[in-house]
């Protein structure tokens, strides 16, 4: 069993399920309004557009490139699976093409590396990152994670 296999997994709700379905295919997609005059991106997913009220939505593919918006280094007490890897990093990434869309995640050395695989001294707000996908848990749930670009 891998070091990441006992982490908590998202429980996809009806609104969020497409995000994870695309992630399983290696695609980072964000919900957007499908009304022709609107098209606003929104996150987290929800039933209707807060800008125009339309219930029509689509999932727009992102480049997967982002920048660190902020990060923390959690130390115990933590749930056991996380305490084992602590101190680790947890980050919020803003997407390059839509900086108001921000995703929580972890910066790792490679897609399936432990949460503590990058020296926290290398983390800087504004640092460029790109998305990778790591199958986690018995069913290979596609968690989105982040690699430092340099």
């Amino acid at each position, binding site marked *: 069993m891998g070091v990441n296999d006992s*982490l*908590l*997994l*998202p*429980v*996809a*709700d009806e609104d*969020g399920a497409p995000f994870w379905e695309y992630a399983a295919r290696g695609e980072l997609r964000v919900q957007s309004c499908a009304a022709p005059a609107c098209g606003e991106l929104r*996150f*987290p997913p929800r039933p209707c557009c*807060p800008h125009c009220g339309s219930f029509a939505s689509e999932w727009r593919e992102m480049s997967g490139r982002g920048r660190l*918006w*902020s*990060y*923390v*280094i*959690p*130390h115990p*007490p*933590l*749930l056991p699976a*996380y305490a084992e*890897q602590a*101190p*680790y990093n*947890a*980050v*919020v990434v803003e997407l390059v093409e839509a900086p*108001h*869309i*921000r*995703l*929580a*995640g*972890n910066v790792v050395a490679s897609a399936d590396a432990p*949460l503590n695989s990058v020296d*926290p001294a290398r983390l800087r*707000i504004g640092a460029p990152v790109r998305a990778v996908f790591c199958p*986690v848990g018995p069913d290979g749930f596609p*968690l989105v994670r982040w690699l430092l670009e340099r």
Partner: protein
Amino acid sequence: MATLKDATAIAGIGQTAFAKRLPESEKTLACRAILAALDDAGIAPSEVDGFASYTMEETDEVEVAKAIGAGDVTFFSKVGYGGGGSCATLGHLAAAVATGQASVGVAWRSRKRGSGPRPWKNTAVQLPTPAQWTRPYGLLRPADEIGMLARRYMHEYGATRDHLFNVALACRNRANQNPDAIMYERPLTREMYMTSRWISEPLCLFDNCLETDGALACVIVSAERARDCRQRPVYLHSVAQGLPAQHHGMVNYWNDDPLTGPAWTAARQLWKQADFGPDDVDVAQIYDAFTPLVPLSLEGYGFCGRGEGGAFTEGGALESGGRLPVNTGGGGLSEAYVHGFNLITEGVKQLRGTSTAQVPDAATCLVTAGEGVPTSAVLLRN
């Protein structure tokens, strides 16, 4: 338009001991605090006909009412979002009393957070909620979620750990004067702060509130009736709740401007109804589950400009005799963490002139509820 301004008053306050571990149940502690508050006011339990607490309060009004011997109850309400609900419980009772839905209202919070399980250990049940977007990545605890905002805040505005220490120290210094505080006679130094263990960098041990067992309560009646009660009335001058547009709760990372939290929304409403402004506040009780919430709240409630909350803490500004003495009982950081209800009772003590860290002639006090979640605030005056 009808107004709540000074229409109601806090006539009684009560509390239990605060400790890491108390033997009695939350229900028993709640009853003790409520009966103490009614005794403080000189009002019989049978006259209570209104109740308000937090949705996270596990002692129902049904249980409390029959245990204390309340009469027929005609108003009851619970406010959501954890520590964001504290001041709103007063607001709901004030509205009920001012509109004749009840005549004697009791607000309370009883909690065994010190000896009970940590809420974040129950993380699995949160996964079908928006927590699905954060918990799996190890943002498990409120300290991790607020630490994320704190790091960004420090980056954008140059706030430092020394600023956060100033907050922790002001609270600790006041707790050192308060025999009821868990941290009474336990001084804090800068060295202790700077060398303490991390909880979630950039937040260390002393940036976090105390895990506490305890209960508190307030009695609210009409201003007219309060003048005939046992204690000097403390008037509810203005009350507000705040849930900003596109707010997402504690993980407010998806708002266009995550560093202007619910405090800003509550503050606009609070000041709109008040006869005075931030410069006229003599003493403030600012929700301090984590130190960064204080500079963020100082900005939100208008004591300084955007990004100036860190610098505001310099030069002893938050200490007794400073520009704005805060959390004069020790706050959540050093007196007790009971979802902020002790901030309300401390505000009442200041306006009665009975605080252990009394601000001379205090006539106005701001009390705030949890920042970073849908929140509330109240302006008290005498």
